[in-house]
């Protein structure tokens, strides 16, 4: 059982405030991913939850107990570090046994738990090896195993895949997802990679500049981003934002055509958000925004075409691989009905009808 509440969490380093009041509820067995660009405060928040850094202001409650002043080792939380942080002088078995013994478990129980974790993580053959004799993926599994044997209420994972090569990364990603299903603990996972966030999370927390921008399921974030930051952060290639003016039932782009407006509040300037799969390109002049092809990316199963619109914005569009455009070709961009997102021109917030 694990129920976490973060209430008005602030973190200051000397005079610099890096977290400006984080409110977040995390339920039992949830897989929560903190995602955001470098320096957004996601790792800092994780360290506050772990207890490695003191909370400057606000309250962290775990299962009804205030945790602000509880030592990291007494919170019932285990952490997997980015560098794995295995003890270099201990073999794999000792690395896993160290924390378990310190919890006061008897010898038989420690052995039982290590055997269980080793079996789950395919570490049986490696128990007598030192960390330096292991590959990156194996070290990663030992780090997870070390967390597992303590049977914590909450697992924290700080960018656990960032030190692995690309091929291994997707493999370990699947393993972590499988592990979460098997052990069913609450997991909090920090990454700057939105693909990891989308594929692993029950709930994504998008952070920027020490604030939470939006909390929601991967689908919610992709389909109804709360603001332009989330809209452009989630999804690859990123969503294009076009400055348009709403007049009557048209959205007009400066010196470059217009598209039909959906149901929208009031006339005026706004930002139109277009994902690569929400637009079509036309070679013949038709209704839509005018632009010129800048370059194309062929990916095999589909292709991306980057179009410089008449107002200077670079737009990405997905096309079929057979439909390749040449640079400098004039095109018209039309919007798939229902695929457009609308954001306020002033503060970037989502506009809902």
């Amino acid at each position, binding site marked *: 059982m694990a129920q976490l509440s973060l209430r008005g969490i602030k973190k200051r380093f000397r005079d610099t405030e890096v977290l400006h009041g984080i409110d977040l509820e995390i339920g039992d067995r949830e897989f929560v991913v903190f995602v955001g660009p470098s320096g957004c405060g996601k790792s800092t928040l994780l360290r506050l939850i772990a207890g490695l850094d003191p909370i400057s202001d606000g309250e962290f409650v775990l299962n009804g107990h205030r945790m602000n002043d509880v030592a990291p080792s007494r919170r019932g939380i285990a*952490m997997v570090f980015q560098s794995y*942080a295995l*003890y*270099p002088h201990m073999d794999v078995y000792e690395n896993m046994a160290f924390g378990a013994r*310190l919890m006061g478990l008897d010898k038989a129980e420690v052995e039982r738990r290590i055997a269980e974790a080793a079996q789950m993580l395919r570490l049986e053959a490696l128990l007598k090896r030192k960390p330096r004799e292991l590959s990156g993926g194996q070290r990663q599994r030992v780090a997870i195993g070390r967390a597992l044997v303590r049977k914590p209420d909450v697992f924290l994972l700080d960018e656990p895949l960032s030190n692995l090569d690309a091929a291994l990364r997707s493999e370990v990603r699947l393993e972590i997802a499988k592990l979460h299903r098997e052990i069913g603990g609450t997991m909090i996972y920090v990454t700057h990679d939105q693909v990891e966030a989308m594929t692993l999370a029950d709930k994504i927390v998008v952070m920027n500049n020490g604030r939470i921008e939006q909390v929601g399921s991967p689908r919610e974030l992709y389909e109804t981003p709360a603001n332009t930051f989330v809209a452009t952060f989630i999804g690859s290639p990123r969503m294009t934002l076009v400055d348009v003016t709403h007049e009557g039932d048209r959205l007009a782009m400066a010196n470059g055509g217009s598209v039909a407006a959906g149901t929208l509040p009031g006339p005026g300037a706004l930002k139109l958000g277009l994902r690569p799969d929400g637009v079509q390109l036309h070679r013949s002049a038709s209704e839509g925004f005018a632009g010129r092809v800048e370059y194309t990316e062929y990916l095999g199963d589909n292709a991306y075409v980057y179009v410089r619109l008449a107002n200077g914005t670079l737009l990405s569009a997905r096309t079929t691989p057979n439909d390749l455009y040449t640079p400098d070709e004039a095109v018209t961009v039309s919007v798939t009905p229902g695929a457009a997102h609308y954001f306020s021109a002033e503060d970037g917030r989502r506009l809902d009808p």
Partner: protein
Amino acid sequence: MPQFRMTGRGLWITVLIVPPLCFVALFIVYPIISAFAYAFFDWQGLRRLDFVGLENFHTVLFVEPYRSWTLNAFKNNIIVFFALMVLQNGLGFILAYALWRELPGARFHRIAVFLPVVLSTIIVAYLFKLFYHPLFGVVNISLKSIGLGEWAQPWLGQSGTALWSIIAAQAWHMVGFPTLVFLAGMQRIPGEILDAVRMETESEWVKITKIVWPLVAPSATIVFTLLFVGAFNWFELPYIMGGLDGSPFGSTDVLGLYFYRTAFGNVSAGQQDFGLGSALAVLIFIFIAAIAAVITTRLRAREIQL
């Protein structure tokens, strides 16, 4: 026939390496070899007499009064070594840990702890001689001023306290060195490893004994070996504070002083014997080299690549 060509790089290396090699050969290798040679001859002053084989070694090890002198000095060196192991290296480790944990004032103390190391040994020796002065020394005056007047005593003047007083001065003088080496070792430990330990225990004792100590093994090898060599070559402080005779009554006599006295003579005992002195020097050298080699290999075995 292959032609030897001096390329620019080879020339540079030669130019840089030849002068120090000559220096080492002339002032280190040659004296060591000649000491070995001297030890096998009978000497009268600076005049070499007959080849006597192992006679000199036999004399310093088994013939009285040399035998007692050798054993006494050797015993004192052993005391010095173990005492400094605790007072200098042990304290150095604790100080390094405190400095590393950034306790309040760490920046000031980092400098304060290392400052005495920079002082000349001569200055430290005379300074502590003044401190220990039976009437005007700051040690006795302090004891009297806090009501412990009956503890005041002639620290350097009695057999029971003289050696320990000099050891204390040595520890104060050099404690900054192991501190610095240990601190450097600790600063090499990755921060995430310490975070990982903190997730598993809050006990400083466990952190120190199970994580920090094993991970600073390379630093320990360095300071242990250097302390061993230093303790058995100890000379300056006892020479100035206890005198060439290791007074009072040989209680501060160590192998360095004893060798010097035997080889080069002394004001109070006119005797001077190059042969016996060289034999002593050779024995000290072999002892230090052998034990230091053992210590180094044993300690190296427990070092871990971070």
